[in-house]
């Protein structure tokens, strides 16, 4: 089986507009889109630029816009696309370094804005006791699986239209920390996310949830934050 692969090419040093190169690639069993990209780069056109590290869906380096959606190239099986025509473009909503490699800086700038690190409570001396059936971490537990690949960021229309919007990943991280009973900076973070560029820009479009390779629903994290922001406004928020 031969795949028709269209690859986005753009080099900001020399090009004004991007172009597409077409490659014919032989498909083999268990082929992921990352295999396709590496095949092209290794054996067809060594000048192609892309980024990847772990190739098993743990590092989140290889998110690309594949056949109409941001996906992790390594976790997207060619057979799952249901077509032999593959179009590969860089992750949307981010500046392009070259070809398929984007500059993740705007994404991480916003991620850093919500203070993504635990600011531990003073009296925390040893691991907290937390029974799995207490439900305390029920929501955040699966949201912590985020690998900051940026797929949600690339899929979000609000990010596309408003360059200041914090975006799904940063807000999800903010929620995980705000709901973490070990953290001491809850209010500080709520003040950050309740700006108009924060949670209120989410209009429950769910594109983020649709593309998340870890099956996280950032929309839900954002709703949890909205709820807390409103409670805080009403003077009902404790913690």
């Amino acid at each position: 089986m031969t795949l028709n692969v269209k690859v986005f090419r753009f080099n900001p040093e020399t090009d004004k507009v991007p172009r597409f190169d077409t490659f014919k690639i032989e498909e083999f069993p268990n082929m992921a889109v990352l295999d396709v990209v590496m095949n092209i780069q290794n054996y067809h056109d060594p000048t192609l630029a892309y980024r990847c590290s772990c190739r098993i869906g743990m590092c989140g380096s290889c998110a690309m816009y594949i056949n109409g959606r941001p996906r992790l190239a390594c976790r997207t099986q060619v057979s799952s696309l249901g077509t032999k025509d593959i179009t590969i473009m860089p992750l949307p909503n981010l500046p392009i370094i070259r070809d398929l490699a984007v500059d993740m800086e705007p994404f991480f700038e916003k991620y850093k804005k919500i203070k993504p690190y635990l600011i531990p409570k003073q009296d925390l001396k040893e691991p907290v006791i937390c029974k799995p059936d207490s439900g305390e971490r029920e929501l955040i537990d699966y949201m912590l699986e985020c690998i900051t690949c940026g797929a949600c960021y690339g899929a979000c229309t609000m990010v596309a239209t408003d360059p200041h919007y914090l975006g799904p990943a940063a807000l999800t991280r903010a929620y995980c920390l705000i709901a973490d009973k070990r953290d001491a900076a809850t209010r500080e973070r709520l003040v950050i996310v309740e700006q108009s560029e924060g949670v209120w820009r989410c209009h429950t479009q769910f594109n983020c949830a649709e593309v998340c390779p870890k099956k996280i629903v950032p929309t839900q994290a954002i709703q949890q934050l909205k709820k807390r922001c409103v409670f805080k406004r009403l003077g009902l928020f404790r913690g």
Partner: protein
Amino acid sequence: MEEIKTDILILGSGGAGLFAALHAYDSNPRLKIVLATKGLIGKCGCSRMVQGGYNVVLDPKDSVELHFKDTIKGGAFINNQELAWTLVNDAPKRIYEMETKIGCFFDRREDGRIHQKPFAGQSFDRTVHRGDLTGIEIIARATDQVFARDITVLEETRGLELLTNSNGDRVVGALLMNIRTGQFIVVKAKAVIVATGGSASMYKISAPSFDKTGDGMAMCWRAGAEFVDMEMLQFHPTGLLAGKSRLSGSVLEEGLRGAGGRLYNAIGERFMERYDPERLERSTRDRVARAGYMEIMAGRGTPAGGVLLDMSHLGAEFVESKFPGMCERVRDIGKDLAREPVEVSPTAHFQMGGVRIDVNCYSSLKGLFVAGEDAGGVHGANRLGGNGIADSTVFGARAGDAAAEFAQSQDWVPVDQVQVKMFTNNVLKFFGHADGPDVYQLRDELKNLMWEKVGVVRTGQKLEQALKRLAEMSEEVERAKLPTGSLRGYNLALNEILNLRNQLVVAQLVAASALYRKESRGSHYREDFPETDNQNWLCNIFMRKKGDGYFIETHPVKFTRLRPEDVAAK
């Protein structure tokens, strides 16, 4: 050329690099710290790919002595015992730090305390984990903490060479290259911490991430650091087989065997009954990997060259709830881990050998600190599953602390511009190579060569053949071609050449050391010397550069805490 002057330069952003940065900063926030990483911070390297978990003594019924004994026994008694002792003693501190300062959250037991799961080769269930994808939690949270501190992070910036003084006994900085722009950066540093990981990716079937190509080891070698036990390279017994896909070789975690997973050959025999009837699949990695390899070689493997890992007898629900990440990965290749056997093969995984260090990560060169997989001696001839991330965080933290202390008492040493010029020319020359060997062909050849000749089962003859070819390839790679009109920025072909150059250095060290050790021990198995020879080989092999070649010698292991007979007596 861009020049940066800093107190501490850290290469690598895996567990060791990140913990080094955090500890160096926290021990003295006034120090300037630069952390350079080949990919994106916290995303490249293998600590993030840790699946199983982190070995640590937390339960009162367990003890560090037991953990130590398991580690030494697993390492076939050639571990550096002081390093191993440091590992088991510091591990609990690091877990506490992760839970209370860094923000990690590990799985809990019913009573709300940290859960510890069974792993192979251990006398107690002591592996702390978060599901079956533990590395993400550790590395993501540590990266978040780096964001909280004033640490300069250079992303997609690879180390090219360590810079040394004129005597060659003091590391004074490093030459880096910004991959995005192709520009060089000279970093003048009082202390350099190398934590870039090993080079197991030089094997056809291998587990590490693609950007891990032994850069740090090769840099340290060229700078003249002393190495130890380079023949010791671990094969993980259960690497997924997925044909030509890059998914091949990725590890199906050890917890699967810990939980009771069984291995069968193609004719349905539970073959571990023959190799280790007592511990069966829960035997150490070296034994299980070799057993699998022997079965495949004896023609009892599957047509694709693997054996079968079966979890189905444990109940689909159990497997899916305990190992969701593994099930998902196997589902990617159209198989169902919870319900049917999955094809696996030994996969090159981890280098126990590396730069010789002491308990504070000082190498043989002044100003050079090494931590994590780049360093050798902690695990001896075989690493226990779950001791890897413990190693990187424990020694990363120690390197950070030590380098901070060192930097406070030292001054900068001038950088030798001639040396810098030589190193940059050695990269720029490739832009003039319109023709020459194709780097991707060379890389594929290296992977096959290592797999066949320096693999799970070695012989003197094969190793000699490998060494000969590796030497030739080292020359060929210097002539490798770059596509005409290649740009400096984001040039993956150029980076592949630099990777291959480094891998070839490490490959030669592994092969040469393997040829030297005329016995079988742990992960190192010689078909021509199949017995473990405690009479002559309870020793470590040391190597260092000498001219264009190397100097190699052995020293007996110092049994400072535990002698082999103490363990055997029990």
